[in-house]
Every structure is written in structure tokens, then in C-alpha cells.
């Protein structure tokens, strides 16, 4: 399936921002599951590149003139091959993804839930379904600083929270599990959205667990970055001087250049 993606992130500030620097993870890598064609990232500042320890492509943008708005546009064409995830593609052993982070640390409630599920594919699918039923998908209920345990208590959150909760449980029962940020294409309404899901290491393979969509396959997922949690894989992390209150709006479009949707 060939997809044309356009993703715009717009930061607006109350007062001008004088200085800012951002780590931007909005460039997908070629993998057996996705082939990238003509990918462009437009930013208003000066950019340089780095590859982080997880192998993610990171654009470092610095801006030293005063602005009221920062717009980042990622655009390109991606072929999804439909191949399943197979061998380990990390620069280090999966054991790295056993460790909890401040965002995934499991409290007693999550631990209690985790240990009811065997560390195999069927167990994790049950865990995923339980989390999706128990925790409502509710944009605005949480922010990027909410932890897995907090979202579980709130019984509400967005894809990132569902993913953190799933990671917390997997790691608690000794299953390496990693955070993935990217896009998802839903074929019925030609809609693409920024998304987050998990991958767990079971049976010597990585397996997709998209908790919000209760999917165990990644046929319509475009991977941007992986990490231990949101902080490692966030599409944008930045600091700025000035600006007052920030508001952020993000929009994404997809078209299928071949016609049909």
C-alpha cells in the first residue's frame, strides 16, 4: 500500500520566542515493513542531523530569531509492505527494554494486573484488551507528563498512556517491551493520525501491540521512532526562551496516490 503523508505541527506562542532548540523525530527509517520515498521535513530554523542510541533519525533545529509561531511540516511517500516484524533490529539486546522509566514505573494496581497474564502472545493480547476496556480513550484527559500508573488510576488517557500502561505490565512480568511513535492510517476514512503503540519481545520476535486499536498486527502503521517511553521517541522535544503560554495543533493527511483509498 502506497501512502502520501503530510503532517503539520504548529506551535503558537502568546509572546515571541527568542531562542529555541528542538530534537525532532519525524523522519521514518527504511525497514522491511516500510519503504520511504521522498521524505522532507520543513522547519523554520537551522537544522543538523543525528542518529540517537536507539537508531532513530533526529533532526536538531535551532532558532535564534524571535517568532510567534513555529511550524514543522513532514511530508513524503511511504510504501507499507505488509511484512510482519521478525528479527531484532535494535543496536542492543532486547533486555534494554526490560527496564522501567519514571513514565512506565508500575504501581501496585498495575503489577496486580500484570501478573494475571502469562508472558506469551495470548496472555499479552488479553492484557491489551483488558487495558483498552478498562481505560477509556479520552483526548485531553492526560498530558505528556502523566505516568502509566496515573492514567490507570484515572481510567482515561490517549494512545501514549495506553502504551505506557502496557509497557509497565510487560516489563513487570519480564517481557522486554518498547514504545513506538508513528502514524496510523485507517483505511475507511482516508485518515492518518499521529499514534503510539508498543512492541513486545516474545518467542524471539518483536510483536506489535496497538492497545488503543486492540491490534496485534501493524499493517497500517508507519514507524517514526522507538524508545523506552514517550520521552525517548517523542516526535518533538524542545526548550525555548520566552513565549509565554504555548498552544500546539497538529494535523495529518494521507492520500493514496494510486487512486482508491
Amino acid at each position: 500500500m502506497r501512502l502520501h503523508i503530510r503532517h503539520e505541527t504548529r506551535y503558537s506562542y502568546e509572546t515571541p520566542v527568542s531562542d529555541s532548540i528542538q530534537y525532532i523525530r519525524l523522519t521514518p527509517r527504511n525497514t522491511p515493513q516500510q519503504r520511504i520515498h521522498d521524505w522532507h521535513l520543513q522547519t523554520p530554523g537551522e537544522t543538523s542531523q543525528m542518529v540517537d542510541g536507539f537508531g532513530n533519525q533526529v533532526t536538531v533545529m535551532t532558532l535564534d530569531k524571535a517568532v510567534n509561531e513555529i511550524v514543522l511540516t513532514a511530508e513524503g511517500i511511504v510504501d507499507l509492505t505488509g511484512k510482519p516484524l521478525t528479527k531484532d533490529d535494535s543496536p542492543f539486546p532486547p533486555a534494554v527494554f526490560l527496564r522501567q522509566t519514571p513514565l512506565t514505573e508500575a504501581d501496585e494496581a498495575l503489577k496486580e494486573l500484570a501478573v494475571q497474564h502469562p508472558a506469551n502472545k495470548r496472555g499479552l493480547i488479553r492484557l491489551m484488551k483488558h487495558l483498552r476496556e478498562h481505560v477509556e480513550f479520552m483526548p485531553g484527559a492526560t498530558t505528556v507528563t502523566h505516568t502509566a500508573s496515573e492514567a490507570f488510576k484515572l481510567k482515561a488517557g490517549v494512545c501514549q498512556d495506553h502504551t505506557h500502561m502496557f509497557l509497565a505490565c510487560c516489563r513487570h512480568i519480564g517481557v522486554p517491551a518498547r514504545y513506538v511513535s508513528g502514524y496510523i492510517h485507517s483505511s475507511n476514512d482516508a485518515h492518518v493520525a499521529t499514534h503510539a503503540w508498543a512492541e513486545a519481545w516474545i518467542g524471539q520476535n518483536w510483536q506489535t501491540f496497538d492497545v488503543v486499536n486492540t491490534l496485534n498486527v501493524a499493517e497500517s502503521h508507519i514507524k517514526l521512532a522507538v524508545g523506552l517511553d514517550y520521552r525517548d521517541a517523542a516526535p518533538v522535544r524542545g526548550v525555548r526562551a520566552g513565549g509565554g503560554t504555548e498552544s500546539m495543533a497538529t494535523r495529518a493527511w494521507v492520500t493514496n496516490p494510486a487512486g482508491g483509498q
Partner: protein
Amino acid sequence: MLIQTPAEGLYDELFDQNNKVRPQCRMLEQWLVNSNEELIAEKRREADVLFQRLGITFNVYGEDQGADRLIPFDLIPRVISASDWHTLQTGLRQRVQALNRFLYDIYHDYDIVKAGVISAEQVFANPQYQPGMQNLKLPRNLYCHIAGIDLIRHSDGNFYVLEDNLRCPSGVSYMLENRRMMMRLFPELFAHSAVAPIDHYPNLLGETLRAASLKPDPTVVVLTPGRFNSAYFEHAFLARQMGIELVEGADLFVAHNKVYMKTTTGPQQVDVIYRRIDDDFLDPLAGNPDSMLGVAGLYAAYRTGNVVLTNAVGNGVADDKSIYPYVPDMIRFYLDEEPILKNVPTWQCRKPKDLQYVLEHLPELVVKEAQGAGGYGMLIGPTASKKELELFRSLLKARPQDYIAQPTLSLSTCPTFVEEGIAPRHLDLRPFVLSGKKVQMVPGGLTRVALKAGSLVVNSSQGGGTKDTWVLEDDQC
């Protein structure tokens, strides 16, 4: 003055087991015996005033007052024979080389894990392992440029490594100031003994830091968290001694993946940062997002090879107490040599058999947190109350992987000025090992002494003091 003789069954640095003065300490003992109490008392007061004036003070974490406190300085030096130092130096060099090889290995091809010497989980699931360091090429493959290795001398007369400090080891400023103090107060002592000099340490450190970069004339700075840090004095002291800038995060910025220092004549590129800030606080965009201490963009500059951090990020995975038991195996694996310095036997409570042994022998053992530092989360079995033993029993059962246990070692003693006169007190030794083009160190290190009778905790945060450390150039004198 009268010198109280040491307790039986312990190694004393001054007296041998027959209470005879060790040959390398004869001169020192004569001086002590011939000194009168009033003169010594006066010198001690003088030392206090000088230290106060120099500003060598120390913030103690966990104390509400937050006030600067003087680390007690003891006037009686600790003497190490030339032959003992020779062994120590060779062993330290070997150990630090192996630790650097280990860090390079686990952040690249992790051969030691593939060879089955240590499990992937122990290395990679360790919270001190930094994924962000994976496959980063560092000049000379060096990770630990400045190491502080804590040693103790056991009753068998051998030195044992208690702990490796490969992150931001502190204390070297006390080592240097203690020597300056002794030379000022007792110049006659140095006239009669061949004590190996240590005052070239700042030169060696500067040389090591410059060698951390492959540039011919790199710009080096010391990065401090600021004056509220407990070791701020040391950061300022070392920068001044080396004649380089002392900076805080706000003095630096990153552009085009390069680090610049703001100066009155404009931005100046920085090539090497001797950072005394913890890994997680170095860059708010890579670590703790709330950190105000670091520099936004620093990780990108580091990752793209435009700046060198000393020590490297992620060294904690090699000096963690859960990795410590594997250091002798590292020496065999990387260097194909037998370890010269001994490790203290260690039970890893993560292993069920070890845990069982520890629970059965708790009153004889020392239990430490695998991640701890500073002597806070620690149980010393023989001196612990029933309540403390019970607390640790439940901690061990709840989170065995967080603890290790070791036999209670009889740290050696050395005569020390205390209220009742001159009495033996327990001590350790922290030599500072510098790795650049070669591995270098000045003779000796920082000697820390537990000032309470019988106490084995020498940490300055727990009421320990320091002594000057004399390595003799020649044992004949």
C-alpha cells in the same frame, strides 16, 4: 605523646602485629612520640583556621541546615611503603584499563555478554546503562578518564577494592589541600622523609582532559551544577589549578551540534567538558526534561562527535555494585591477565542461593544497595540493632535484586588524634586514576578516616575525616 596501640586482629598502618613500628613509619612515630601535646593542639587549631579561610567546606546531603561544614582533617599522615604502592599502582592501572574496555564493549558489540561471562539482563536492564551511548565512537575508546577506586586494607594485610567510582568521583581537592596543609604546618617532617610529591595532579588532569579530544589544542572547561552542590569547592579549585574556565549550564549553548561558551569576546567553541553533573541532568532534551543544570542540545553535540564529555555518559553501568563482582572476570576477559587487586567476596541477593545465605547470616554481613552511594542505605550486621536487622530482612525479601552483601571487613587502622589522645581509627584509600594517552596517577590518594571509635563508615557525609597520604619514594629511609 602516648600512642594508643591498636586492637588485636586488625591491621594497623603504623604498628605490626607485635606492636613494633613498621619500618616505613619509624620517622613518623619518632615525631609523634617527641611532640608535646600543646604544640600539636596549637597546630590543629591552626589547621582549622587555614581550612576555614581556604573555604574547603562540604555540604552534607540530607541535613536540613544545608550549611557548609568543615571536613575534619587529621594531622597524622597515613604512610604507604614504596613496594605496597608499586603493587597498588600496577593493579589500579590494570583494573581501570579493563573497566574502560568493558564500557567500550557493552556500548558496541557486547562480546562479554555474547561470551556468557555476564548476562544481558544484568548489563542492559541495569538503569545505569544508557541506550543513548550505543555505538557512539569516542576518542581513544575512553569512557572513564578520571576514576576514583576505593580500597581498604584487610587484616590479612592485603588491599581490597571496595568500590569503583567511574562517574564523577570527588575528593581529589582534599588530597591536594591536605598535603599543602601538612607542608605548611610541619615543613621539618618533609625535610627528613622522601615523601612522593602529588602537587603535579592538576597538570596530569589537564593533560588527561586535553587528550580526551583528538584536536591538537582543545578548549577544556569544567561544568559544575553550581555553588549549592556539595563538591562545588572542588570544581572551582580544579578549574583554577588547571587555569581553565569553570562554567555552569547557562554559560554554554549549542548551535549546529557544536558547544559554545559565551565569552566577553564572543562565542568560543568548547571541545572537552569535564562535567560534574549527573548523566540525567546534562541535556533536558535527552534526559530529565526539568533539568536546569545542563545544556539543551548537548547530547546531539556529543552524539555527533563535536564535543567530548569526561567522564563519558553511562559509566554507571560499570561501577554499579551489582556489576562489581564481575570486574575480576573483565580483567581476565579483556586483558588475559589475573587480577592484581582483590575484590571483596560479594553475594548477589538477586540470586536465590545468595539471598538465602545472606538472610541466614545477616548479623555478620554488610548489606548495601546495588545503586546506592554515600553510605545511607546500608546495614552493618555486627553493629546493627534488632530493629535494623528486621528492617533489612524485609527489604531483602521484597527487593532482593536491589541489594548485595559482603563479609564485614576489618578495615585497617591508623593512629589518629581524638579527644582522648592518639588512638587507632579505621580508614580507606581513594587513589585517582587518570586515563588519557596513558594511564597515570599521583602516588597515594585521599585517605578517609572514621573518627568514631570502632566505626567502619568513612564517608565524609557520615562524619568521617581525612588524612594526608604519604607514599614513600624509597622503603630504606
